[in-house]
C-alpha cells in the first residue's frame, strides 16, 4: 500500500486505564499508536492481559479511552455525534471469539443477519431477503440453514453466521477478536479460508485481526503488531517479523509456539516467570523482568525509544539498532 492512501484506522497515543475499587489502576493500553491503511490485514498478537482485546473494543468505541485519539476514515470516534456514530458503526464491524454468546438464541440466523440491514438501510422485503441469502451462501451456509436457530448449528457454522452478519453491511473495517480460538483445527481451517478469501474478494476491506495464535496471524495477515503489557513492542510485515524477530519478547514468543514437527528447534528462548499484572506494570521497559538481555540501570529505569531498524518495521527495545549503526548488514 502506498503511504498516501487514507488511513482506515488511526490509533494515536491511546491510553485505556481502568480504575479498581482498591485504588489501583489497570493500565490495559498505554500510549499505543497503530495505523491500518485501507485494504490492509493487520494482526495484533499478545498473551492474555496484553491489552489486545481492549484495543479492538476501543477502536469501535465499545470502551472509552482514557487518552489519545482513534480515527476511522478520518472521523474521531470519540468526538462524533451519536447519529454519525451510527453511520460509522455500519462501516466498522466486529466478530468475537465465542459465536454462541454473540447470537440471540431466539432469532433465526436469517433474522440475525437481517437486523443490521433493517436498522441501517431501507432494504425491505424481497431485496432484503436476497441480500441476506447471498451473504449467508457466500460464507458457506446454504439455504436450508437460513431458518434455523443458533442451537441447531455447530460452532463453525455459528461463526460463519457472525461473519455474514458483519459482512452484510458491506463494512470498510472489520475487527476480528480471536474468531477461531473456540474452534477445532479442521473447522478453523474452513473459517480461515473464508477470511483469506475476503482479502481477494473485497480488496478494500481493512481487517484488524486480534489473536494469541501466531500461526493463524502468519497465515492471514500482511502486517503484525506484537503487544506486551499494553504497548506494541514490535511491528512490521508478517514475513519479516516472523523470520527475523528483533524484540526479545517476539523472539521468545515465536520460539515458544509449539511447531507441528518432530524435530527439536534450535532457537529455543525460554522466558522465566509470568506476565506481570497490568495493575503493576514494571518501570522502564515493561518486559525487563523477564527479558534475557535486560541490562540493570537501563532497562529497569528508562522506557526504550521507538526504533525503526528497517523500512516499515518498529521495535521498542534499547538493544535494537537503527540501520545507520548496523553497517554492512
Amino acid at each position, binding site marked *: 500500500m502506498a503511504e498516501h492512501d487514507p488511513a482506515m484506522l488511526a490509533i494515536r497515543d491511546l491510553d485505556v486505564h481502568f480504575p479498581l475499587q482498591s485504588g489501583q489502576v489497570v493500565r490495559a493500553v498505554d500510549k499505543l499508536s497503530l495505523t491500518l491503511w485501507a485494504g490492509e490485514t493487520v494482526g495484533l498478537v499478545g*498473551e*492474555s492481559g496484553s491489552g489486545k482485546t481492549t484495543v479492538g473494543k476501543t477502536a469501535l468505541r465499545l470502551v472509552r479511552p482514557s487518552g489519545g485519539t482513534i480515527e476511522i476514515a478520518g472521523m474521531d470516534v470519540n468526538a462524533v455525534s451519536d447519529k454519525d456514530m451510527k453511520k460509522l458503526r455500519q462501516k466498522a464491524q466486529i466478530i468475537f471469539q465465542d459465536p454462541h454468546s454473540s447470537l440471540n438464541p431466539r432469532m433465526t440466523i436469517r433474522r440475525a443477519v437481517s437486523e443490521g440491514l433493517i436498522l441501517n438501510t431501507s432494504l425491505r422485503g424481497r431485496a432484503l431477503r436476497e441480500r441476506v441469502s447471498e451473504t449467508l451462501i457466500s460464507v458457506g451456509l446454504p439455504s436450508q440453514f437460513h431458518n434455523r436457530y443458533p442451537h441447531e448449528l*455447530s460452532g463453525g457454522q455459528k461463526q460463519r453466521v457472525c461473519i455474514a452478519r458483519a459482512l452484510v453491511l458491506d463494512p470498510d473495517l472489520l475487527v476480528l477478536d480471536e474468531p477461531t480460538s473456540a474452534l*477445532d*483445527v*479442521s*473447522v*478453523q*481451517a*474452513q473459517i*480461515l*479460508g473464508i477470511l*483469506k478469501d475476503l482479502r481477494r474478494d473485497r480488496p478494500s476491506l481493512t481487517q484488524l485481526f486480534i489473536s*494469541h*495464535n*501466531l*500461526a*493463524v496471524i*502468519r*497465515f492471514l495477515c500482511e502486517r503484525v503488531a506484537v503487544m506486551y503489557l499494553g504497548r506494541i513492542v514490535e511491528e512490521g510485515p508478517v*514475513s519479516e517479523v*516472523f523470520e527475523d524477530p528483533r524484540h526479545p519478547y517476539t523472539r*521468545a*514468543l*515465536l*520460539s*515458544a*509456539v*509449539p*511447531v*507441528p*514437527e*518432530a524435530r527439536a528447534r534450535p532457537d529455543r528462548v*525460554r*522466558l522465566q*516467570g*509470568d*506476565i506481570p499484572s497490568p495493575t503493576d506494570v514494571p518501570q522502564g521497559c515493561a518486559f525487563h523482568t523477564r527479558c534475557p538481555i535486560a541490562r540493570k540501570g537501563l532497562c529497569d529505569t528508562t522506557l526504550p525509544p521507538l526504533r525503526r531498524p528497517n523500512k516499515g518495521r518498529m521495535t521498542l527495545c534499547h538493544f535494537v539498532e537503527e540501520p545507520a549503526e548496523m553497517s554492512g548488514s
Partner: protein
Amino acid sequence: MAEPLLNIRDFSLVFDTFDGTYRAISNVSLSLEPGEALGLVGETGCGKSVLTRAAFGLVPSPPARITGGSVQLQGRELLGLSDRALRQVRGREVAMIFQDPTTYLNPVFRIGTQLIDAIRAQSGGRIGKLEAKSIALDMLEKVHLPNPDRQFRAYPHELSGGMRQRVLIAMALAAKPRLLIADEPTTALDVTIQAQILDLMAELVSDLGITLVMISHDLGVVAQVCSRVAVMYAGTIVEDAPLARVFDAPAHPYTQGLLDALPHPLRAQDHLASIPGTLPDLLAPPQGCLFAPRCPHRAQVCAAPVPMRPIAESHHVACTLYDEVRKKELAHG
C-alpha cells in the same frame, strides 16, 4: 518387550440417552510400555477424554455403559473393580491433571494444606503431617515452582495459571504414580507459559521416568513432549505411530487432513486444506470406516469393518485403502 503398563483391549463404551445409544468409544485398543510418552490427539467429541476417564472409572454409569473390552494396569483388570478399589488405583497408581487448574483447587484452603491432605490421602493415612509437608515442598521444588516456601502458604487465587498447574502436577506426582494422564494440561495457558509447562512435562518423562498419556487437540503441543501419537476420530483410533512418522508419513486420510488444516507458525502458506463435512452422528454411525463420508479416497470396501493393521515398525493404521492410495501416490511421484 516389557509387559505393557497399561493395556486397553477392544474397549467400547456407549451413553444411553433419550435419543438412543450414543457410541462414544468403539473397539479401542491401546497399550503403553513403561516410560513411554503417548500423545492422544483428536478434535472435540472424538472420545479422547472419555476413553482415559472411563478406563479408570471416572465416567458415571448410567448414562455411560461399558459394552466390552478390558483395561489392564500392570496385568490387573480394572473393569469391574469396586469403587473403593478404583479409588486406590487413582491417586496412587494413576494420577491425572486437567485443562483448567483453577477448578481443581479449593479456593478457600491454602496450597500447602491441599497438598498435605492429598499426600496423606494417597498414602492411606500412613504418612504423618510433617512428613507430608516435606514431601510436598520437595515436589514443589521438582516442578520448579518459584519460592515454594512462600507459595505453600498462598491461596490458589494468589497464583497464576501456570503456577497452579505446577501445583497440580506436584500433587499428582507426590504418590509416585506409575502413570500420569494429562488432559489438555496447557490449553488454558498462554504460549510462553505453555512452553514452560511442556518443558516440565518433557523433563518428568526423561528424568523421572514417568509414563505419560497426554491428551491434546494440538499436534504441535504433543510434538514437544511425546514420542508416540495415537489419533482418534469419532470414538476410534485411526492411527498409532511414532512421533516422527505422524508428521513425515501420516498414513490415515484423517491424520493427513488434520496436518494439512494446521497453520504453520514458521512458514508462509497460501492455502489451508480443510476437511469437508462434519463428524458422523454417533447415535447412528455409518457402517465400516467412520471417516469414509468425509474421505477423499472412499470406495465401496470402506463400508466393511476396518481393523488396525501394521504398515511399518510400531506404525498402525485403520484404513482399508492404505496400500492402494499409497501406490497411487507413489505413481504420481
